[in-house]
């Protein structure tokens, strides 16, 4: 019988302790931690891995990024221009495939060429809109094409 009442007493005590904690939050509006998103936007830290951006003018077309990419999100096509320099004519990054792992950024040998922007809002209506095109475009015929190097997604990739 004492056991019965003791159990009941302990149960009520523990429940009241719990309710004491919740009421503290319930009556104190200062405990709210929510950020009102569209109005208050948090500033991502410097190392934030957002949308990939390529400064195409300093890109050497070495294809290191496309080779390291584990999901083949980067399509790169380079041709040699008249100065024998590799020119990235097509540089597409498929943001829908990208897993934001950052391997390409680390692989890029040029300082501040391929990097993450602090951008995290890039929803789109179609998948095509999610592909960012950075390529310089095909050369005009008079500029001459010497060599073509193309990296395409590997066939029979497992998704």
């Amino acid at each position, binding site marked *: 019988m004492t056991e019965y009442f003791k159990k009941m007493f302990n149960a009520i005590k523990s429940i009241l302790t*719990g*309710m004491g904690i919740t*009421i503290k939050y*319930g009556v104190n509006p200062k405990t*709210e931690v*929510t950020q*009102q998103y569209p109005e208050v936007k948090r500033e991502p830290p410097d190392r934030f891995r957002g949308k990939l951006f390529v400064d195409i003018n300093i890109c050497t077309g070495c294809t290191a990024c496309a080779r390291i990419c584990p999901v083949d999100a980067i399509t790169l096509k380079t041709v040699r221009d008249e100065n024998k320099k590799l020119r990235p004519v097509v540089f597409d990054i498929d943001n829908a495939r990208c897993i934001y792992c950052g391997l390409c950024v680390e692989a890029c040998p040029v300082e501040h060429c391929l990097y993450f922007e602090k951008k995290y809002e890039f929803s789109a209506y179609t998948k095509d809109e999610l592909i960012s095109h950075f390529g310089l475009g095909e050369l005009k015929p008079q500029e001459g094409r010497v060599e073509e190097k193309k990296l395409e997604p590997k066939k029979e990739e497992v998704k």
Partner: protein
Amino acid sequence: MTELINEIITRLANAAPIIRLLVVIAIIIVSSVIVLAVALLYEGLATYAERKVAGDIQARIGPNRVGPYGLLQFVADGVKLLLKEDIIPFYADKWLFIIAPYIVFTASFAAFVPLSYSEHIYIANLNVGVLYILAISSVVSMAILMGAWGSNNKWSLFGGMRAVAQIVSYEIPTVLSLLAAIIIPASLNMRDIIAYQSGGLGIFRWLIFNNPFTFFAFFIYFIASIAEVNRTPFDIPEAESEIVAGYHTEYTGMRFAFFFMAEYGDMFVVSALATTLFLGGWQIPFIGNIVMPVWLKDILEVAVFFGKVFLLIYIMMWIRWTLPRLRVDQLMELCWKYLTPFAFFNLIGASVWVLLLHGKGVYDIITGLFVH
């Protein structure tokens, strides 16, 4: 309300019988629409309040987008639910499936009828008010089982069986603890009960303070009533982590909304019953016999009544967002091993008290000592 109708009928005594009938029907329809509108407004605000309370307790903000402070959130929710596709499962028992939400809804609203909101504002002055509420709210369990069976879904069936087992079991401590209070004013009429609790600074003659047994009876009733309305920690009929959504798993759109609103309606009814029986109904505390215009007094009384009810509802919400859920057998254990025996002994105690002291409460006795 009945007096109002009677008065109109007497004034129309000379009119043709058909016109009298039409007038009466019109009055009934208009008054039910008013009650329904008020009740729907209450329900909308209650869902809003629930979410806001949950937000506060969980260190969040809660709805704050639709309207000022998100107050119109329930309108948006209602519109959304209205526009949703009404899905009736192919293998459902269509008749039961369709009719169940209406019965739940009707039963929950019918329980609003005998409540007395102020001295002059009430819908029906039933002499069996308490009994009526208890009876009509039991219909809910039947309708829940209808919906659960009609859905032809195994999770629904689990929910329905749980709901019926739970509601039927918890009726017993509910009624026993209510009886402990009812035997003092010796009436089932809501207005009589409230009138009995007047005086004593508007607070000390409340039945909860009448004697130690009614004090305990209040808490037993409150716990049991949480179970009656299927709220955490007793929400096993719709335990979302176990049986998906319980008896309303297959319901969509407005049909789901009926179940949902009925839950909040039930919350109001059980809280109002607790207020009426234990907390002095619309008796304004600490005012005593100050003379004031009738309309002001009525407004104040309504405000006090709703204030008390909402306080109880807030406690229900507070409990919901704090405690984990009981298991189905533990729920029954709580009912049969703890609440029912306690309520029973309480009832015996209260009866003895009434018998020995002729219904005098603690306050009466103490003031009686000073008078002599």
